[in-house]
């Protein structure tokens, strides 16, 4: 048995980590935040070249045909770096297209793999579509509730402004007759994939916020000693560590259940989103309290990770929504 990704997947994630450290560090992130487009130029193509975007696309479309457990450590890295790129949306979109098959899949999947197309999807309880303003193709329900593939040029978007400048949210309206209806897709499975992928990012966000806080607590001095020598700080950081350490295996198990289409897939995905959201929110609160004033500034990097944890907590179903989904699975005979 193995509860972590396979070694080759870990090695691949490590290479992505190096790539992101190289092209998407905090400085690059800051530029993207101040930029109207809100993305880091060139990164998307680099991720495509590295094989990230095609990792879970079936081989028949030119992908690597890997499952979610292989992609998982990459998604944690994406969270660690608070990367402002539509990876989850595109990966889930590609999953939907592959399941639907047909000409739409044949047309779009190779472009996704090559990094030439971004997909945004609307699934689950929410009505906002994350990454829609960045997307070339939208997978959204039409007025009859049928999921359709709609080139974004044909859709009407109402963009919103999030406190997290690293995401782009919009409401999408599909004119009657626009787009292509997608049949034979297990939408719940696709939604759960997005939920687990988001949970993985939240775990990564929490890890970075913990690391930032620990290093700050070791160097910042008050009353003549590092604040990390105060028990009040130590214990807050210890609780922060424990919270996230126990979310990690829950997220891993959810990826396995999704990859195996286990009967507990939805329950496990919701458990993962709930645990990871709780850990990330806890991490954001504690990180700010430990950083105190400096963490409250826009100049410091912390706020970009905090606000990403706020948005990812609110998308793909809130933790309350997922807790109730778990409750319905385990409390109803």
């Amino acid at each position, binding site marked *: 048995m193995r509860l972590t990704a396979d070694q080759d997947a870990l090695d691949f994630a490590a290479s992505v980590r190096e790539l992101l450290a190289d092209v998407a560090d905090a400085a690059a992130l800051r530029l993207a935040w101040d930029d109207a487009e809100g993305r880091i130029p060139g990164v998307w193509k680099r991720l495509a070249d590295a094989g990230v975007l095609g990792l879970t696309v079936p081989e028949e479309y030119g992908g690597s045909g890997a499952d979610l457990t292989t992609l998982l450590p990459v998604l944690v890295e994406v969270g660690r770096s608070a990367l402002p790129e539509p990876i989850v949306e595109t990966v889930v979109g590609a999953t939907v297209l592959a399941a639907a098959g047909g000409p739409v899949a044949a047309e779009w999947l190779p472009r996704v793999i090559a990094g030439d197309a971004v997909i945004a999807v609307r699934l689950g309880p*929410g*009505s*906002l579509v994350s990454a829609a303003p960045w997307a070339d193709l939208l997978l959204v329900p039409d007025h009859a509730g049928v999921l359709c593939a709609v080139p974004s040029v044909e859709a009407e978007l109402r963009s*919103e*402004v*999030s*406190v*997290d400048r690293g995401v782009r*949210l919009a409401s999408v309206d599909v004119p009657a007759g626009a787009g292509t209806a997608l049949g034979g897709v297990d939408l719940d499975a696709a939604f759960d994939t997005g939920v687990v992928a988001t949970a993985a990012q939240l775990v990564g966000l929490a890890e970075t916020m913990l690391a930032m806080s620990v290093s700050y607590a070791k160097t910042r*001095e*008050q*009353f*003549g000693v590092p604040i990390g020598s*105060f028990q*009040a*700080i130590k214990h807050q950081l210890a609780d922060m560590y424990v919270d996230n350490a126990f979310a990690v295996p829950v997220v891993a198990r959810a990826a396995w259940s999704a990859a195996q289409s286990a009967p507990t897939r939805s329950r496990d995905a919701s458990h993962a989103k709930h645990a990871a959201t709780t850990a990330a929110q806890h991490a954001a*609160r504690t990180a*700010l*309290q430990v950083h*105190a*004033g400096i963490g*409250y*500034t*826009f*100049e410091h990097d912390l*706020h970009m990770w905090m*606000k990403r944890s*706020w*948005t990812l907590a*609110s*998308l793909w179903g*809130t933790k*309350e*929504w997922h*807790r*109730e989904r778990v409750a319905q699975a385990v409390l109803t005979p």
Partner: protein
Amino acid sequence: MDLTEPAKLAAFRGEAREWLRSHVPSEPLPSLDTAAGFAAHREWEREMYDARWGVVTWPEQYGGRGAGLLEWLVFEEEYWAAGAPVRVSQNGIFLLAPTIFEFGTREQKDRFLPPMARAEEVWAQGWSEPGAGSDLASLRSKAEKVDGGWRLSGQKTWSTRAVFADWLFGLFRSDPGSERHRGLTYFLLPLSADGVTVRPIRQLDGEPGFAEVFFDSVFVPDEHVLGGVGEGWKVAMSTTTSERGLTLRSPGRFMAAADRLIDLYAATRVADPAAAAAARDDVAQAWMDADAYRLYVLGTALKALGGESIGAESSANKLFWSQLDVAVHETALAMLGERSTLEDDNVSAPWLDGYEFSLAGPIYAGTNEVQRNVVAERVLGLPR
């Protein structure tokens, strides 16, 4: 026991409510952290001052109503319930003014209080330094005695409102050999003085809510020293106590927030019943905590009026309101769900702003970790 509001107090409440009802801007003013917004808030303060609602607790001779603690609590309840703007003069009228009344000379009172009350002179605070946050006594910015006054050098940070304010009050080390609480002096100076450089700091919401202030041999005349030379710590503590205590976080503010939360709950019950159901217990808790805070502060005020000192209660106070404020906003954001992070949503934006603001509560004016130490050591008598 008697919780009936006395007729005189009820009349005061009625008068305040009536005036606020007819004068509070129907549209929210632009952000305090913009030049235009700052000016608009100055105008609002002036309008209040002209109607003698600006500084109700001050003596009549300085434009106040000589209002007592209870009147002040009542006024604050009405002020926030009316949805009135935040107080741009806050640093001055709530933090500095009590100190001037206690330690200022007659000349200082006449010079500084009237323009402060009219918001012609808005004050920024100069407490913290890069190396002196929770450990305020470790500050190093210095004041050198020169003919007729002092020359200030060094750096302050987290100076609220300093970007647009006119004057600054703060502590400087006037005795070069001194350490910790000794050898500090309390100075008042215009931010327009030669040698003063203000560098805005963007806070969490991206707005320049506070600033770093650099002092390069800034001259301050002797008459702008507040209290005795070398007695700055004693003088300043009277201020930070009021900051932590009653006069900065009036219950009215949280009662108004709890009422807005209840409105949001009612709306959410229609728009997203599941989200409302999940938040129901937290909404009830928020209302109960705001109500408990109101009662606790009332009890403390009545104690103070009864001649008891209220020292360390202010730390318990700060712990409670700062946690309450965060919880109220977290509950709101949970109900707002996917729209909770939208800055351009009329419903979400105020809650998001309020949340970001509430996150400063457990940090400023002495972190909650410091406050817990104070409660443990001064109230419970545990060893340092």
